[in-house]
């Protein structure tokens, strides 16, 4: 449980940066090489490389080697995890209000 919470924090942190969000949108549509990603932004190769490391650590992207190039794709399972977190939050409130309604019915 704690481990899962830490992982979610990593995911949320990863998504907080606009460039990282944009990278995710691009690799969601098609697999891109690191070089192709660098060309799309007015920042250095090192900066993009750093963003990719953050995304990889959060398990938001998959990287694979193809010849001399590294190819990047989206890892949708991590986002499903974040959706699950929101659903748990909703259920917490649902059970709270269910209790409230029961009490007011009896009272």
């Amino acid at each position, binding site marked *: 449980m704690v481990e899962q919470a830490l992982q979610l924090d990593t995911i949320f942190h990863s998504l907080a940066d606009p460039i990282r969000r944009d990278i995710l949108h691009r690799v969601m549509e098609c697999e891109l090489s690191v070089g192709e990603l660098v060309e799309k932004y007015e920042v250095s190769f090192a900066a993009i490389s750093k963003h990719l490391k953050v995304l990889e650590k959060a398990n938001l992207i998959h990287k694979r080697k193809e010849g001399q190039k590294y190819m990047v794709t989206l890892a949708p399972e991590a986002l499903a995890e974040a959706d699950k977190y929101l659903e748990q939050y909703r259920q917490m409130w649902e*059970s709270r209000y269910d209790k409230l309604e029961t009490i007011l019915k009896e009272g």
Partner: protein
Amino acid sequence: MEKTKVVKDLEAKTLTIEREINAPKQKVWGAYADKDIFAQWWGPEGWETTVKEFDFRPGGHNLYAMKCVDPKQGDFFGQESWAVMQYQTMDEPNGFSYKDLFANPDGTPMENMPVVNVEIKFIEKDGKTTVATTIQANAAEEIEKLLAMGMVEGISSTFDRLEKLFA
């Protein structure tokens, strides 16, 4: 059926939880304003609420603990967390606002934990009351989380569109 909705507003950086309760708003107000009633329902399923201090008026506060008493909830079982509601404005029976803080059992706020502004509105129609709880995050990381949730939603819906395209 899901009766509780969580609505995200990324512009305002808020989360709003909406739920219709089958009771008039004066009664719903009472469930927040009365110490004993509040303690009966505030803890979610499997969590018990103990209220240590309770002063429901603007400038007053409520110090309470929620403890998980359900062995089926795994790691949460036995966990206890203390919190303070610092009541700000009140407009009986239409709504009130408070600051929500993580606290130590003596009521002092925990350091490095987010302080969240909460606004509650009671809207009555045909004898039923919609409770709208709007949570405004102050701490930077909370706002990041809210933004991330919006991002997640954006991505999920794009996936849905992709799936339809390939169906």
